């Protein structure tokens, strides 16, 4: 992964396995961790909330990236997995089981089973047909959730108390900021490691050409299902987090456009890249606030009903522009800038350099 294109050689297996390999990267990572740790000291609650939201979105985007970016299985049903996780938690809380030590494993189990069920059609269906199947699954999950909500009497949704872990209570902006950022980092490391493991390589082979993957001995059925299960377990856990974080679960929060949001994140970030998923999640989360600020700066008295379509439209327009002009997403832009900085005055990497 040497950006300098030569002169840096790894001399041990440990060095080859290390996620952070050069001094510059170690320095950058330390700086990032320090900034994230110290942020609550000098940033306002609003900024912390934004970062928390982006971290939460990053978890979902990383999970979708495993399925769509790495394994190449298109899913329009991501919001369905999220809803399944959130409503599993809500159902358990409703029955008096509030400890996250019970709800989170239960949610993971439900997510895994759902992923398996949705994944099985992927053994027969490809592309568009699979996407439609996942979309149908999304509606079925929402129907089940809606039934549950209607049965519970209070038609608006479920209230979830703040989770307790031992003596620790997750309540308030700062606590959730640390929890969500730490969990997002955890998921990021997990996904990066999955990506370079046997499973990740198998997924990428299936994505690029399933017939070729099968002919070199990859068990296509098994790895397709494992991609679905990994993705759905992480997403369902994100759904449980959503329930605890917001303290409220309702069907309305998991519409089709939530799934579109997540797809936009991994497209804008860059398909198949963990860094891209994080960048895309931050971008899509912050975009509406940026437009709000922009509109407030340009014309403070603009009618509110113009702001909503402007946000919605800008979001759609950006997604289309990225799809057509920059399929590698933000990560592609970042790599080009980085290469340009490191390689200047040359334009291209040396041919023999490790990529």
């Amino acid at each position, binding site marked *: 992964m040497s950006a300098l294109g030569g002169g840096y050689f790894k001399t041990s297996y440990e060095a080859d396995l290390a996620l952070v390999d050069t001094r510059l990267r170690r320095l950058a990572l330390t700086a990032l961790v320090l900034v994230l740790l110290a942020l609550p000291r000098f940033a306002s609650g609003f900024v912390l909330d934004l970062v928390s939201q982006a971290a939460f979105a990053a978890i979902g985007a990383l999970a979708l990236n495993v399925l769509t970016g790495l394994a190449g299985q298109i899913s329009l049903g991501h919001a369905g997995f999220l809803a399944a996780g959130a409503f599993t938690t809500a159902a358990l809380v409703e029955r008096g089981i509030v400890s996250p030590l019970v709800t989170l494993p239960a949610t993971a189990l439900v997510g895994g089973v759902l992923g398996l069920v949705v994944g099985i059609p992927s053994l027969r269906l490809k592309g568009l047909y699979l996407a439609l199947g996942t979309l149908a699954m999304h509606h079925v999950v929402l129907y089940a959730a809606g039934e549950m909500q209607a049965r519970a009497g209070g038609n608006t949704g479920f209230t979830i108390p703040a989770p307790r872990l031992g003596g620790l209570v997750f309540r308030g902006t700062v606590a959730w900021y640390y929890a969500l950022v730490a969990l997002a980092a955890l998921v990021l490391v997990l996904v990066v490691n999955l990506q370079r493991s046997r499973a990740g390589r198998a997924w990428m082979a299936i994505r690029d050409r399933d017939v070729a993957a099968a002919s070199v001995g990859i068990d296509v059925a098994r790895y397709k299902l494992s991609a679905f299960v990994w993705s759905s377990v992480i997403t369902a856990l994100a759904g449980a987090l959503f329930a605890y974080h917001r303290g409220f679960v309702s069907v309305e929060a998991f519409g089709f456009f939530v799934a579109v949001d997540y797809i936009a994140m991994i497209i804008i970030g860059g398909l198949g890249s963990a860094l891209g998923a994080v960048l895309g999640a931050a971008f899509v989360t912050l975009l509406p606030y940026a437009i709000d600020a922009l509109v407030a700066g340009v014309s403070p008295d603009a009618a509110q009903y113009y702001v909503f379509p402007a946000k919605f439209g800008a979001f*759609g327009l950006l997604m289309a522009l990225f799809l057509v002009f920059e399929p590698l997403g933000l990560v592609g832009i970042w790599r080009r800038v980085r290469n340009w900085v490191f390689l200047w005055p040359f334009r291209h990497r040396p041919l023999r350099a490790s990529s």
Partner: protein
Amino acid sequence: MAQALATTLVVASLYALLGAGYVLVYRASRVLNLAQGDLLTLGGYFLFATAATFPGAPALALPLAAALSALTGVLVYVALMRPMAGHPVFAAVLVTVTLGILLRAAIVFVFTDRTRHPLQNLGLSNPPRPLAGGAVVSTFDLVMVGAAVALFAALFVFLKVSPLGIRMRAAGERALLASQRGINFHGVFALSWALAAFAGGLAGMIYSSNVRLEPSLGILGLRAFAVALVGGLDSLGGVVPAALLVAAVEVASVRWGNPLLSDVSPFLCLLVMLLIRPWGFFGTREELERV
């Protein structure tokens, strides 16, 4: 029972109009147009705009709105779908999702999100009509059924007999071969998109006259894609039985289930179909491998 039959027929007509749009677009671009529902909404708003411009002149407002809908289809093809040729299907489908978002944003921008009733400006009324057997439907319910029957009859004749229709079928079958025989497939595909947008717009005009008009009508389109898939994504003839089936299941689930179940019933039909016969009633089996 007669009421249930009548309702099924009306709902099936709406789904058939939308399903025709899905199939026409799929045959042209091998893409499922997830913006079809928003093209429906747009048709309704075109009618609202033309009716407001020419109040009391439905003979002018209706054809104008229909023409605007068809024109939108051509514009979408030229501006969005033609550049997406050669890109992965996934990207093209997402572009249609994007198109839906943009259309909805544009509609809210121009017309705000208030609920509208274009019929008021049109100077027409929508009285209930009793049918044989004690069923009652509204006038525009009947118009919907008539429009669906007329559209399918016209499409059938057009595709079977007219040279342009035969070219459209050829290009839909295999664009490369068609272009080598001198068929201007870009023109043909633009026409397919125009027809799809016209069918969707027509459904939107009738639906908005009948019920109401608001930017979120596009959700109807999501439900109607189940129809296109159950019938076979590349089979126009499959749309009719599929629309009847999905509508019947939906009406039955309202009668014996609850409204929530009826909302999800098209998707249940879709899932069952995907499991037992993914290429649909009359679809081509090879399509599964090609996408």
